[in-house]
């Protein structure tokens, strides 16, 4: 077996837990059954969202078919999946290429850079095939069935499905490998790797917006005329965000002719070109970015007595434990990127596209009119609160607080600090970053929408209470099933289903309360009162649950 395949096999077993010999062993079967059941449960929980997406696609197809633009739904799915893979690919690649400790250990083996990079790239590709499922499968199926596509279409669809992540992943890998090469030059490696990641993520965001902005004004009548007269008009517009997707969209739409085959080959060529380029850049730069990246600088200088005095003032055990949590979150690159940065990035990501759009077009944004009437105000407030809750559920701070401790969890078990205080400190650390995210989000909303000071204050109040049950539920989930068996830090936060569960909880709780508000309450003050009451109740119930049952579970956990 070549070294590349040997490495790939080991990585697949290690990261995806896929091993035929392990499945054959009887004692492992229950573990796999549990894994599969968990997967089905997650899909089941996502089912309503997928159903809604499929429904929208079917409606879209029916609406677009009379004007001959139905093939645009294919491009929509492709563009969406490519953008998601590209954006999250940047995170995956930073984590998986550079922050995984086993990547460092591979440096000691007689492997070429492209072999290591290629094998790790392939593992990420495995994850991306799963990511693709909910986004790409529905449009492929719906278009195929509804348009009565020929048999070749289904073959092309399968090939397209397999090819689709290659280009965005390749595009994500190239700048990451280049920037990380230079981030590794610095003596303060942790800091520079975080900064390097920030640069790559900013580039990814900028790329998307540049393509979004480029192109004609959608309100121009001549443009619309032109759009409708061309069967691929809408497809071309949508694919502007990710131009390569146009070829696959066309290949699928023209599957019955030779032209479709050529377009598929074009898409395949582009995809493989991107991967080849990424591997080529990797061969030149990857190891240079990785070598010594775990080194840390040490001053090896004695502290002055004033330093000792300043640093050894002493604080309460609870606060000390909280500071420890915050320091580790800020200083550990995978935790910073996946937990802290998401909090700060989402508000920015939400504002920038609208700012660009509003600078592109004259006139007011649709929601600006909402501020004027009470119902509109309620909708705005619930929408912002919902976002704050989603952010708190998805930032992975509380839902991975025990998981992140990993092998060090034994320390929490032997120190004389009660489990209730440890739980409280973990809640507080998540709360601090949650509040930071909420404040930024509300500020971002203020940039787009002329909110009054009193609305902003009310929003702050509601948000701070709304995130509490989400954070508590996240911690509870992590106490029930902490993922402490990991080889490197990124696995604790990136490949942790607890984050998905916490996100789902946020969606369900937020969805139920906010839906009730929008549906049944007509005065903004009443809405605020109802939300405060509901979230406070949920927070209290969960807090009580954490401090009784949660502590018992914590006691049962072993380090």
């Amino acid at each position, binding site marked *: 077996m070549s070294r590349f395949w040997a490495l790939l096999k080991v990585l697949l077993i290690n990261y995806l837990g896929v091993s035929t010999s392990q499945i054959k062993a009887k004692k492992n079967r229950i573990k796999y059954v549990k894994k599969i059941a968990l997967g089905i449960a997650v899909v089941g929980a996502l089912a309503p969202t997928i159903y809604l997406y499929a429904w929208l696609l079917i409606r879209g197809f029916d609406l677009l078919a009379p004007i001959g633009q139905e093939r645009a739904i294919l491009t929509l799915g492709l563009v969406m999946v490519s953008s998601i893979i590209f954006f999250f690919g940047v995170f995956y690649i930073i984590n998986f290429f550079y922050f995984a400790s086993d990547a460092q250990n591979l440096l000691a083996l007689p492997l070429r850079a492209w072999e290591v990079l290629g094998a790790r790239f392939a593992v990420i590709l495995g994850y991306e095939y799963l990511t693709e499922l909910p986004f790409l499968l529905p449009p492929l199926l719906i278009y195929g069935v509804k348009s009565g596509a020929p048999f070749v279409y289904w073959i092309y669809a399968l090939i397209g499905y397999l090819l689709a992540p290659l280009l965005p992943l390749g595009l994500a890998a190239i700048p990451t490998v280049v920037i990380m090469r230079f981030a590794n030059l610095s003596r303060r490696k*942790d800091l520079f790797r975080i900064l390097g990641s920030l640069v790559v993520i900013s580039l990814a965001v900028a790329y998307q917006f540049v393509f979004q902005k480029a192109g004609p004004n959608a309100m121009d009548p001549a443009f619309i005329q032109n759009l409708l007269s061309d069967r691929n008009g809408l497809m071309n517009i949508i694919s502007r965000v990710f131009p390569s997707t146009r070829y696959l969209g066309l290949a699928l739409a023209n599957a019955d002719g030779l032209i479709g085959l050529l377009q598929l080959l074009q898409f395949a060529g582009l995809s493989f070109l991107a991967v080849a380029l990424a591997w080529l850049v990797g061969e030149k730069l990857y190891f240079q970015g990785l070598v010594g990246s*775990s*080194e*840390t*600088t*040490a*001053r*090896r*200088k*004695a*502290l002055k007595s004033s*330093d*000792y*005095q300043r*640093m*050894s*003032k*002493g*604080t*309460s*055990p609870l*606060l*000390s*434990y909280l*500071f*420890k949590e915050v*320091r*580790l979150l800020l*200083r*550990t690159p995978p935790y910073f990127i996946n937990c802290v940065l998401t909090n700060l990035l989402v508000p920015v990501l939400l504002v920038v596209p609208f700012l660009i759009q509003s600078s592109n077009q004259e006139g007011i944004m649709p929601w600006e009119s909402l501020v004027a009437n009470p119902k509109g105000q309620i909708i705005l407030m619930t929408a912002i609160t919902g976002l704050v809750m989603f952010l708190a559920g998805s930032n992975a701070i509380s839902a991975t607080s025990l998981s992140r401790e990993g*092998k*060090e969890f*034994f*320390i929490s*078990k*032997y*120190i*004389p*600090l*009660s489990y209730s205080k440890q739980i409280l400190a973990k809640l507080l650390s998540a709360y601090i970053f949650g509040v930071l995210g909420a404040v930024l989000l509300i500020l971002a909303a203020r940039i787009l929408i002329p909110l009054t000071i009193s609305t902003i204050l009310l929003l702050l109040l509601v948000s701070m209470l709304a995130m509490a049950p989400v954070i508590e539920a996240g911690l509870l989930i992590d106490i029930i099933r902490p993922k402490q068996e990991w080889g490197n830090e990124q696995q604790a936060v990136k490949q942790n289903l607890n984050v998905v569960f916490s996100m789902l909880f946020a969606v369900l709780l937020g969805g139920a309360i906010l839906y009730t508000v929008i549906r049944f309450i007509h005065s903004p003050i009443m809405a605020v009162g109802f939300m405060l009451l509901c979230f406070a109740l949920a927070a209290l119930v969960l807090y009580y649950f954490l401090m009784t049952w949660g502590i018992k579970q914590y*006691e*049962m956990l*072993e*380090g």
Partner: protein
Amino acid sequence: MIEITSVSKSYNRGTVKAVDGVSLSIQDGEIFGFLGPNGAGKTTLIKMITGILNADEGSININGKDIRRDPLGAKMQFGFVPDDPNIFARLTGIEYLNFMADIYQVSSEIRLPRMQELLNRYEMANTVGDQIQSYSHGMKQKIVVIGALLHNPPVWILDEPMTGLDPRSSFDLKEMMREHADAGNTVFFSTHVLDVAEKICDRLAIINKGKVIFCGSMEEIRAHAKENQSLENLFLELTENE
């Protein structure tokens, strides 16, 4: 004083018995060595004494405080050095020590002189401002030892404490263990190196496959080993490990 009464722990739903009905009594004023080959159950027992693992059966008292019924009281009684010193890699040494001092509620008047004394003794004063991840294995071991001793605990529990220490630090630690025991305190430590145990222990216990097969002084063990085939074999194995 540590009282361990009929403690058992098994894994895999009772199929693997890691510790099997162990009873030990470690008196004040003695250094007690806990000896056994790799995988004998040493670390499992130590983890149960310190509250990291829950015993399936039996009870453990540290200076009269039960680790299950009064965990915080019991935990305040001891300082613990784990077998793996890889802790909080991204905190600086001084941050770690202050964290431990805060948790054990060491007042700022006491902690500063104590910290400086231990740092100087272990030659760590020049490195304490750096992140722990920049330390060598031995330096990590030293900072963990200092962190465990900051609150001057009456009971010391050390799991393979000499591993990774340079000869000078190892000598210093042994000397401190002696001083601590001579002051009427308890030192409990595990090792798989017979030589270390022989030199500093007042009494020791040998554990194999989860069971304590002998407990007594070194002389008693030697005498007993001549009569008991399995103890003699184990003894030989331990000697070969040196």
